[in-house]
């Protein structure tokens, strides 16, 4: 099996963007628009209008000026595709996709069955992982979804390694039997699909099954159905990703705090010291260094959870009438 080396593809790129290529238009952090480049068309977004003519012939990663701002034109990857998908409900995000692909042991040459197809987010990730000589069979009961993803695969040059199928795997099983290396399930009743999955897997090579469930009760039933179908090493894993925010770090001395308040560098009022404040040396000693904080930055308040841990570590000297608490206040 060979891949078309000509034509648009998530797998191969020419140095410059051609008509028919899928590009990811990076507008701002968190806002990306996937677009198939076509002469005569115009993309409308936050920064105004961008005519596709301007995109064609440019290099990937180029910064282009739209009518009201700048955007970047990026090569599509499965990660960018997932992040920029317009249908943002109920899709699997990058962290989950990565974990699923790892657990399925997807690699070039792997044959994988998936159900349901859904938005095609994971389908793209799997297809790219098994390329160029593997294959993805993706099943869904919704024909319109299947058609949509089939169209996307074609546009993205992935048709030859993917087969979208309209089929209910819970009742009718999978498109292949005794053939695949891995089965991924994201269906409401995985326990019904699991015996079919066992039949879809290659008897000689063995294989893996991964079932994604949004709730505990499904997980519990899926676990026992897997054991009953002869699967071993059944494990339940939840991926909890955390994103950190990198912010300019601002360290104040207590003197600076007394003088300026809990102000971040930009807000710091430049007042002349009039003798009242002692030991005032530097305004923002560490303003240029960066520090990572959790994405959920506190709004100037200590959150309850931290505070209660603090209280317990401190022990009896707090919230106790005999010991007194000294509170420093501005």
């Amino acid at each position, binding site marked *: 099996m060979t891949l078309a080396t000509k034509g648009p593809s998530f797998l191969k790129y020419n140095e410059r963007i051609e008509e028919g290529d899928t590009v990811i238009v990076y507008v701002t952090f968190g806002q990306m628009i996937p677009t198939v480049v076509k002469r005569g068309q115009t993309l409308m977004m936050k920064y105004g209008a961008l005519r596709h003519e301007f995109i064609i012939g440019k290099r990937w990663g180029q910064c282009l000026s739209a009518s009201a701002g700048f955007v970047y034109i990026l090569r599509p990857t499965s990660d960018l595709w997932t992040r920029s998908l317009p249908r943002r409900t109920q899709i699997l995000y990058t962290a989950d996709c990565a974990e699923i692909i790892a657990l399925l042991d997807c690699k070039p040459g792997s044959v994988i069955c998936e159900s349901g197809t859904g938005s095609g987010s994971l389908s793209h990730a799997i297809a790219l992982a098994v390329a160029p000589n593997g294959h993805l069979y993706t099943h869904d009961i919704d024909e319109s979804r299947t058609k949509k993803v089939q169209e996307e695969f074609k546009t993205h040059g992935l048709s030859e390694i993917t087969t979208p199928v309209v089929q209910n795997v819970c009742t009718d099983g999978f498109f292949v039997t005794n053939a695949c290396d891995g089965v991924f399930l994201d269906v*409401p*009743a995985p326990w*019904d699909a699991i015996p079919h999955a066992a039949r879809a897997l290659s008897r000689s090579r063995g294989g893996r099954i991964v079932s994604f469930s*949004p*709730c*505990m*009760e*499904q997980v519990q039933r899926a676990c026992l159905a897997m054991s009953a179908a002869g699967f071993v090493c059944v494990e339940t894993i*939840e991926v*909890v990703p*955390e994103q950190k925010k990198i912010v300019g*770090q*601002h*360290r*104040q*001395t*207590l*003197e*600076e*705090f*007394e003088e300026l308040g*809990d102000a971040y560098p930009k807000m710091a009022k430049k007042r002349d010291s009039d003798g*009242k*404040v*002692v*030991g005032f040396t530097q305004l923002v000693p560490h303003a240029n*260094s960066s*520090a990572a*904080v*959790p*994405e*959920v*930055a*506190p709004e*100037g*308040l*200590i*959150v*309850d*959870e*931290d*505070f209660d*841990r*603090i209280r317990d*570590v*401190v*022990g009896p*000297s*707090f*919230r*106790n*009438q005999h*010991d*007194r*608490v*000294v*509170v*420093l*206040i*501005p």
Partner: protein
Amino acid sequence: MTPPTTDTAANIISNGQYLIVQKIDGEQSRIIRFTPKQKILIEKLKFTADSAFGKPYGLFEISSGQCLPMSVDRLIEELQLQEAAVATSSEPAPPTTVTSSETIITSDDRVVIAPSALKLEPEQKRQKLEMDAVLEMRKQGVSGQEMVQKLVEGSASFQTRTVFSQSKYIKRKAKKHSDSENSEIALTDLMGAVAQSIPCVHSMNYDEQTLSTFLPVRIKCVLAEKQLPYENNRRPANGEAVENNGDVEMEEKEQNEERKVEEQDQEALARRNDRLERERKGIEMIETENAHSLIIGSRTVDPISVLELLYAKLAPSASIVIYSPHQNMLITAYDWLVKRGAINLMLTDQMCRILQVLPDRTHPLMAQHVAGGHVLTAIKVIEK
């Protein structure tokens, strides 16, 4: 050995109090100071503060802008009435027809199970069966309370379904009331919310008992203390003394305003004197090196700046607890403490996961990282 009962008067909502207002199963809880004629608005729910005065903290029902205390008994009673209605309903709507939040309380709603599996034949059959069983129990005159008991004790199947639905029912009920401007809210006093109160301890109306545990000291005084203002035989005995103290001047705008108020209001004067007296005690406590713990919580102040001022004054075996959203601040504080021989150093982080427990759909909520920072702890010891 009889249990000490808290004074009932302490549980009564009064003018000027800070209260936590929370809509039952609402999204947010807010701290609001209740003053006369004030309109309180929370999550589309409106009522006058006056209507809460004189009533004990607890569960309220909002009706035509008024706060009415609501007993749990009545809540359970209403629940049972609603259950009876379910039992006598003859035409339950199919579960999949639930469309809007307004119509969400259909008579069938209590036994809607596992929406994610609704498309499947066996699931639907099971629901049907259970619905029949529930109706049968109703016919036999089993009360709601009894039935809950039976279900909890009985089959796990019923247990995880029907009564969960009941819990959901209560939530939905609250929601419906909300839509019709008639919903339960909870009013709680602020005592427990010390976390939020510390930055504003000087302005909040704590009760006598709580106040006595706080000794607010202005940072200005602690910094000035470096030059020993109180040791200079100028230890202030009351507010006046502090005001006459040249090292710690009080020409701040706020202070001036307060002085005006003072002239008009003897009560305010007494409060102020009390505050300054407590400040003196606080400074004294710092000086006698008897503090058993030091807690530093700030977004921007370098903890080392505070440690340099106060660490030497802590009693040996005291705990040091430092919170910061910035890990780097804590790392430098860690190095500082290690150099001074502090022991049992720990840098911890914490995640709180909220699980949504629903019939056949128990799942963790996505937004779960509550703690926006790290905590460094240590114990001061007498070095070898």
